[in-house]
Protein backbone atom coordinates (compact mmCIF):
# COMPACT_ATOMS: atom_id res chain seq x y z
CA UNK A 1 0.00 0.00 0.00
CA UNK A 2 1.25 3.44 -0.85
CA UNK A 3 2.16 5.72 2.00
CA UNK A 4 3.12 9.32 2.61
CA UNK A 5 6.87 9.77 2.13
CA UNK A 6 7.07 13.46 2.97
CA UNK A 7 6.33 14.00 6.66
CA UNK A 8 4.00 16.79 7.70
CA UNK A 9 6.00 19.75 8.99
CA UNK A 10 5.45 23.34 10.06
CA UNK A 11 6.16 24.32 6.44
CA UNK A 12 2.87 22.74 5.41
CA UNK A 13 -0.39 24.64 5.25
CA UNK A 14 -2.51 23.03 7.94
CA UNK A 15 -5.61 23.49 10.05
CA UNK A 16 -6.46 21.84 13.34
CA UNK A 17 -4.34 20.92 16.33
CA UNK A 18 -0.71 20.05 15.66
CA UNK A 19 -0.94 17.06 17.98
CA UNK A 20 -4.19 15.73 16.49
CA UNK A 21 -4.32 11.94 16.31
CA UNK A 22 -5.98 12.09 12.91
CA UNK A 23 -3.84 13.66 10.22
CA UNK A 24 -5.38 14.07 6.77
CA UNK A 25 -3.22 15.15 3.83
CA UNK A 26 -4.84 16.04 0.52
CA UNK A 27 -2.91 16.37 -2.73
CA UNK A 28 -5.09 18.49 -4.95
CA UNK A 29 -5.44 20.65 -8.02
CA UNK A 30 -7.61 23.78 -7.90
CA UNK A 31 -8.86 23.19 -11.42
CA UNK A 32 -9.66 19.50 -11.00
CA UNK A 33 -13.42 18.93 -10.87
CA UNK A 34 -12.99 15.95 -8.52
CA UNK A 35 -11.07 18.17 -6.11
CA UNK A 36 -13.84 20.73 -6.44
CA UNK A 37 -16.31 18.00 -5.51
CA UNK A 38 -14.16 16.87 -2.56
CA UNK A 39 -13.88 20.42 -1.19
CA UNK A 40 -17.34 20.60 0.49
CA UNK A 41 -16.91 17.04 1.81
CA UNK A 42 -13.65 17.96 3.53
CA UNK A 43 -15.13 21.25 4.69
CA UNK A 44 -18.05 19.47 6.34
CA UNK A 45 -15.82 16.88 8.01
CA UNK A 46 -13.63 19.65 9.39
CA UNK A 47 -16.65 21.63 10.57
CA UNK A 48 -17.77 18.57 12.49
CA UNK A 49 -14.45 17.16 13.75
CA UNK A 50 -11.99 19.98 13.07
CA UNK A 51 -10.77 20.05 16.65
CA UNK A 52 -9.61 16.43 16.28
CA UNK A 53 -8.19 16.51 12.77
CA UNK A 54 -5.05 18.11 11.40
CA UNK A 55 -5.73 18.81 7.73
CA UNK A 56 -2.96 19.57 5.26
CA UNK A 57 -3.36 20.60 1.63
CA UNK A 58 -0.48 20.10 -0.79
CA UNK A 59 -0.35 21.15 -4.43
CA UNK A 60 -0.62 18.61 -7.21
CA UNK A 61 -1.40 20.68 -10.30
CA UNK A 62 -1.82 18.59 -13.45
CA UNK A 63 -0.54 21.40 -15.61
CA UNK A 64 -0.85 19.57 -18.93
CA UNK A 65 -4.58 19.07 -18.45
CA UNK A 66 -5.45 22.13 -16.38
CA UNK A 67 -4.06 25.38 -17.71
CA UNK A 68 -5.00 27.38 -14.59
CA UNK A 69 -3.89 24.84 -11.98
CA UNK A 70 -0.39 26.21 -11.37
CA UNK A 71 -1.49 29.85 -11.35
CA UNK A 72 -4.25 29.09 -8.87
CA UNK A 73 -1.80 27.23 -6.62
CA UNK A 74 0.52 30.22 -6.93
CA UNK A 75 -2.20 32.59 -5.70
CA UNK A 76 -2.89 30.33 -2.71
CA UNK A 77 0.82 30.24 -1.84
CA UNK A 78 1.07 34.02 -2.21
CA UNK A 79 -1.91 34.47 0.11
CA UNK A 80 -0.33 31.95 2.48
CA UNK A 81 2.79 34.06 2.79
CA UNK A 82 0.52 36.83 4.05
CA UNK A 83 -1.38 34.60 6.48
CA UNK A 84 -4.43 34.16 4.25
CA UNK A 85 -3.82 30.69 2.81
CA UNK A 86 -7.10 29.05 3.78
CA UNK A 87 -9.18 32.07 2.80
CA UNK A 88 -7.64 31.98 -0.69
CA UNK A 89 -7.89 28.16 -0.83
CA UNK A 90 -11.62 28.33 -0.10
CA UNK A 91 -12.27 31.15 -2.56
CA UNK A 92 -10.41 29.30 -5.33
CA UNK A 93 -12.48 26.13 -4.87
CA UNK A 94 -15.72 28.03 -4.37
CA UNK A 95 -15.12 29.85 -7.66
CA UNK A 96 -13.54 26.97 -9.55
CA UNK A 97 -15.52 27.75 -12.69
CA UNK A 98 -13.99 31.23 -12.89
CA UNK A 99 -10.28 30.49 -12.39
CA UNK A 100 -8.23 33.14 -14.15
CA UNK A 101 -6.60 36.50 -13.70
CA UNK A 102 -9.81 38.39 -12.88
CA UNK A 103 -10.64 35.98 -10.07
CA UNK A 104 -7.08 36.01 -8.71
CA UNK A 105 -7.08 39.81 -8.52
CA UNK A 106 -10.54 39.75 -6.97
CA UNK A 107 -9.37 37.28 -4.31
CA UNK A 108 -6.31 39.37 -3.49
CA UNK A 109 -8.44 42.52 -3.22
CA UNK A 110 -10.99 40.74 -1.02
CA UNK A 111 -8.21 39.50 1.26
CA UNK A 112 -6.46 42.87 1.35
CA UNK A 113 -3.38 41.62 -0.50
CA UNK A 114 -1.32 43.84 -2.76
CA UNK A 115 -1.70 43.22 -6.49
CA UNK A 116 1.66 44.84 -7.04
CA UNK A 117 3.26 42.28 -4.75
CA UNK A 118 1.40 39.48 -6.51
CA UNK A 119 2.81 40.62 -9.86
CA UNK A 120 6.30 40.94 -8.44
CA UNK A 121 6.05 37.43 -7.03
CA UNK A 122 4.76 36.13 -10.38
CA UNK A 123 7.61 37.78 -12.28
CA UNK A 124 10.17 36.15 -10.02
CA UNK A 125 8.28 32.82 -10.18
CA UNK A 126 8.53 32.87 -6.41
CA UNK A 127 6.43 29.88 -5.36
CA UNK A 128 6.97 27.57 -8.29
CA UNK A 129 9.74 25.61 -6.59
CA UNK A 130 7.51 24.93 -3.60
CA UNK A 131 4.60 23.89 -5.82
CA UNK A 132 6.88 21.56 -7.77
CA UNK A 133 8.33 20.12 -4.57
CA UNK A 134 4.80 19.40 -3.33
CA UNK A 135 4.06 17.59 -6.56
CA UNK A 136 7.27 15.55 -6.56
CA UNK A 137 6.66 14.50 -2.98
CA UNK A 138 3.17 13.43 -3.98
CA UNK A 139 4.47 11.37 -6.89
CA UNK A 140 7.00 9.64 -4.63
CA UNK A 141 4.21 8.89 -2.17
CA UNK A 142 2.00 7.25 -4.78
CA UNK A 143 -0.46 10.01 -5.61
CA UNK A 144 -2.49 8.36 -8.37
CA UNK A 145 -4.81 11.13 -9.45
CA UNK A 146 -6.43 14.15 -7.88
CA UNK A 147 -7.50 14.39 -5.21
CA UNK A 148 -5.42 11.79 -3.37
CA UNK A 149 -5.88 11.60 0.40
CA UNK A 150 -3.47 10.15 2.95
CA UNK A 151 -5.05 9.39 6.30
CA UNK A 152 -2.48 8.97 9.06
CA UNK A 153 0.11 8.35 6.38
CA UNK A 154 -1.76 5.69 4.37
CA UNK A 155 -3.23 6.38 0.93
CA UNK A 156 -7.04 6.14 0.89
CA UNK A 157 -7.74 4.11 -2.22
CA UNK A 158 -11.48 4.73 -2.04
CA UNK A 159 -10.98 8.44 -2.66
CA UNK A 160 -13.46 11.09 -1.56
CA UNK A 161 -16.30 8.57 -1.26
CA UNK A 162 -14.37 6.67 1.39
CA UNK A 163 -13.34 9.79 3.29
CA UNK A 164 -16.24 10.21 5.78
CA UNK A 165 -16.22 6.56 6.88
CA UNK A 166 -12.42 6.43 7.03
CA UNK A 167 -12.33 9.57 9.15
CA UNK A 168 -14.96 8.32 11.59
CA UNK A 169 -13.16 4.97 11.84
CA UNK A 170 -9.90 6.79 12.57
CA UNK A 171 -11.58 8.99 15.16
CA UNK A 172 -13.35 6.03 16.75
CA UNK A 173 -10.29 3.84 16.97
CA UNK A 174 -8.27 6.61 18.47
CA UNK A 175 -10.81 7.74 21.00
Amino acid sequence: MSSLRIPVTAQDHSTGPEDAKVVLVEYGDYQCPYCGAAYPVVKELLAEHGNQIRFIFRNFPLADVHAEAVDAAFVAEFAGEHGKYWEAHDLLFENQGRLGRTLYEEICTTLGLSLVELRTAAESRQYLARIQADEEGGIRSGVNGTPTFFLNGQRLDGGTAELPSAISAALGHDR
Partner: protein
Amino acid sequence: MGHGMQWIGDLMPDDTPSILPAGTPAPDFALKVTADQVLNLSELRGAPVVLAFYPADWSPVCGDELSVVNAALPLLHERHAQVLAVSVDNVWSHEAFAQAHGLHFPLLSDFEPKGEVSRRYGAYDEVTGESRRALFVIDAAGTIAWSYLSPVALNPGVDGVLDALGALPPAPNTTAQ
Protein backbone atom coordinates in the same frame (compact mmCIF):
# COMPACT_ATOMS: atom_id res chain seq x y z
CA MET B 1 -11.00 -11.73 -2.97
CA GLY B 2 -14.28 -10.92 -1.21
CA HIS B 3 -17.35 -13.09 -1.80
CA GLY B 4 -19.01 -10.20 -3.65
CA MET B 5 -16.53 -10.69 -6.47
CA GLN B 6 -17.00 -14.43 -6.72
CA TRP B 7 -18.95 -14.32 -9.96
CA ILE B 8 -16.10 -12.52 -11.66
CA GLY B 9 -13.77 -15.19 -10.36
CA ASP B 10 -16.07 -17.78 -11.94
CA LEU B 11 -15.87 -16.03 -15.28
CA MET B 12 -12.09 -15.99 -15.24
CA PRO B 13 -10.37 -18.92 -16.87
CA ASP B 14 -8.52 -20.96 -14.27
CA ASP B 15 -5.32 -20.54 -16.20
CA THR B 16 -5.35 -16.73 -16.01
CA PRO B 17 -1.66 -16.00 -16.44
CA SER B 18 0.24 -13.97 -13.91
CA ILE B 19 2.28 -11.07 -15.17
CA LEU B 20 5.93 -11.72 -16.02
CA PRO B 21 8.01 -11.50 -12.85
CA ALA B 22 11.34 -9.81 -12.14
CA GLY B 23 14.28 -11.66 -13.64
CA THR B 24 12.48 -12.56 -16.88
CA PRO B 25 13.92 -11.25 -20.14
CA ALA B 26 11.43 -8.67 -21.43
CA PRO B 27 9.84 -10.04 -24.62
CA ASP B 28 10.75 -7.81 -27.55
CA PHE B 29 7.95 -6.28 -29.58
CA ALA B 30 7.29 -3.95 -32.47
CA LEU B 31 4.20 -1.80 -31.99
CA LYS B 32 2.80 1.20 -33.79
CA VAL B 33 3.28 4.59 -32.12
CA THR B 34 1.60 6.47 -34.94
CA ALA B 35 0.01 5.38 -38.21
CA ASP B 36 3.39 5.15 -39.90
CA GLN B 37 5.85 4.76 -37.05
CA VAL B 38 6.76 1.52 -35.31
CA LEU B 39 8.75 1.24 -32.09
CA ASN B 40 10.81 -1.81 -31.19
CA LEU B 41 11.46 -2.34 -27.49
CA SER B 42 15.01 -3.48 -28.32
CA GLU B 43 15.77 -0.02 -29.77
CA LEU B 44 15.68 1.32 -26.23
CA ARG B 45 18.27 -1.15 -24.88
CA GLY B 46 20.91 0.69 -22.86
CA ALA B 47 18.51 2.64 -20.66
CA PRO B 48 15.72 1.52 -18.35
CA VAL B 49 12.20 1.37 -19.74
CA VAL B 50 8.96 1.83 -17.85
CA LEU B 51 6.23 -0.15 -19.58
CA ALA B 52 2.69 0.65 -18.45
CA PHE B 53 -0.18 -1.48 -19.74
CA TYR B 54 -3.60 0.10 -19.25
CA PRO B 55 -7.12 -0.95 -20.21
CA ALA B 56 -8.32 1.84 -22.45
CA ASP B 57 -7.94 5.40 -23.65
CA TRP B 58 -10.65 7.76 -22.37
CA SER B 59 -11.76 5.84 -19.29
CA PRO B 60 -11.43 8.32 -16.40
CA VAL B 61 -9.17 6.13 -14.29
CA CYS B 62 -6.65 5.65 -17.08
CA GLY B 63 -6.64 9.36 -17.81
CA ASP B 64 -5.67 10.01 -14.23
CA GLU B 65 -3.03 7.30 -14.19
CA LEU B 66 -1.34 8.56 -17.34
CA SER B 67 -1.66 12.19 -16.21
CA VAL B 68 0.28 11.30 -13.08
CA VAL B 69 2.89 9.44 -15.17
CA ASN B 70 3.06 12.60 -17.29
CA ALA B 71 3.64 14.74 -14.21
CA ALA B 72 6.30 12.26 -13.08
CA LEU B 73 8.28 12.43 -16.35
CA PRO B 74 10.96 14.79 -14.97
CA LEU B 75 11.59 12.36 -12.09
CA LEU B 76 11.61 9.38 -14.46
CA HIS B 77 13.97 11.12 -16.89
CA GLU B 78 16.27 11.99 -13.98
CA ARG B 79 16.65 8.22 -13.69
CA HIS B 80 17.27 8.01 -17.47
CA ALA B 81 14.10 5.98 -17.95
CA GLN B 82 11.98 5.96 -21.10
CA VAL B 83 8.24 5.59 -20.62
CA LEU B 84 5.94 3.58 -22.90
CA ALA B 85 2.24 3.01 -22.33
CA VAL B 86 0.36 0.21 -24.08
CA SER B 87 -3.32 -0.46 -24.67
CA VAL B 88 -5.36 -2.21 -27.36
CA ASP B 89 -6.74 1.08 -28.72
CA ASN B 90 -5.83 2.05 -32.26
CA VAL B 91 -3.32 4.74 -33.18
CA TRP B 92 -5.99 7.34 -33.94
CA SER B 93 -7.57 6.97 -30.53
CA HIS B 94 -4.11 7.19 -28.96
CA GLU B 95 -3.31 10.35 -30.91
CA ALA B 96 -6.49 12.12 -29.82
CA PHE B 97 -6.15 10.89 -26.24
CA ALA B 98 -2.51 11.96 -25.94
CA GLN B 99 -3.37 15.37 -27.33
CA ALA B 100 -6.38 15.85 -25.04
CA HIS B 101 -4.30 15.01 -21.97
CA GLY B 102 -1.07 16.68 -23.08
CA LEU B 103 0.85 13.40 -22.72
CA HIS B 104 4.56 13.61 -23.50
CA PHE B 105 5.36 9.90 -23.90
CA PRO B 106 4.45 7.35 -26.57
CA LEU B 107 1.20 5.40 -26.43
CA LEU B 108 1.68 2.09 -28.22
CA SER B 109 -1.12 0.32 -30.01
CA ASP B 110 -1.45 -3.40 -29.23
CA PHE B 111 -4.18 -3.55 -31.83
CA GLU B 112 -3.34 -6.19 -34.44
CA PRO B 113 -3.17 -9.00 -33.59
CA LYS B 114 -5.21 -7.65 -30.74
CA GLY B 115 -3.55 -7.78 -27.33
CA GLU B 116 -0.70 -10.00 -28.49
CA VAL B 117 2.03 -8.09 -26.69
CA SER B 118 -0.07 -7.62 -23.56
CA ARG B 119 -0.67 -11.38 -23.59
CA ARG B 120 3.06 -12.11 -23.81
CA TYR B 121 3.60 -10.05 -20.65
CA GLY B 122 0.70 -11.79 -18.90
CA ALA B 123 -1.07 -8.46 -18.96
CA TYR B 124 -4.10 -9.28 -21.09
CA ASP B 125 -7.58 -9.74 -19.69
CA GLU B 126 -9.30 -12.38 -21.84
CA VAL B 127 -12.71 -11.53 -20.36
CA THR B 128 -12.76 -7.79 -21.06
CA GLY B 129 -10.51 -7.95 -24.11
CA GLU B 130 -8.32 -5.17 -22.71
CA SER B 131 -4.87 -4.91 -21.22
CA ARG B 132 -4.66 -5.26 -17.48
CA ARG B 133 -3.25 -2.45 -15.36
CA ALA B 134 0.28 -3.81 -15.21
CA LEU B 135 3.56 -1.96 -14.70
CA PHE B 136 7.03 -3.19 -15.65
CA VAL B 137 10.45 -1.70 -15.08
CA ILE B 138 12.91 -3.14 -17.59
CA ASP B 139 16.61 -2.60 -16.96
CA ALA B 140 19.19 -1.36 -19.45
CA ALA B 141 20.02 -4.95 -20.45
CA GLY B 142 16.41 -5.77 -21.28
CA THR B 143 15.53 -7.81 -18.20
CA ILE B 144 12.39 -7.18 -16.17
CA ALA B 145 13.59 -5.72 -12.87
CA TRP B 146 10.17 -5.16 -11.30
CA SER B 147 6.56 -5.79 -12.16
CA TYR B 148 3.26 -4.97 -10.53
CA LEU B 149 -0.37 -5.72 -11.31
CA SER B 150 -2.90 -3.23 -9.96
CA PRO B 151 -6.62 -3.93 -9.55
CA VAL B 152 -8.31 -2.63 -12.69
CA ALA B 153 -10.27 0.06 -10.84
CA LEU B 154 -7.25 1.37 -8.97
CA ASN B 155 -4.58 3.69 -10.33
CA PRO B 156 -1.22 2.35 -9.28
CA GLY B 157 0.62 5.67 -8.93
CA VAL B 158 4.33 5.97 -9.74
CA ASP B 159 5.89 5.37 -6.32
CA GLY B 160 6.63 1.69 -6.99
CA VAL B 161 8.20 2.49 -10.36
CA LEU B 162 10.45 5.17 -8.86
CA ASP B 163 11.55 2.81 -6.09
CA ALA B 164 12.33 0.10 -8.65
CA LEU B 165 14.29 2.52 -10.84
CA GLY B 166 16.16 3.75 -7.77
CA ALA B 167 17.15 0.17 -6.95
CA LEU B 168 18.70 -0.46 -10.39
CA PRO B 169 22.49 -0.50 -10.54
CA PRO B 170 23.80 2.56 -12.40
CA ALA B 171 23.72 1.75 -16.11
CA PRO B 172 27.10 1.76 -17.90
CA ASN B 173 26.00 4.14 -20.66
CA THR B 174 23.65 6.69 -19.17
CA THR B 175 25.42 9.70 -20.58
CA ALA B 176 23.05 12.48 -21.56
CA GLN B 177 21.46 11.98 -24.94
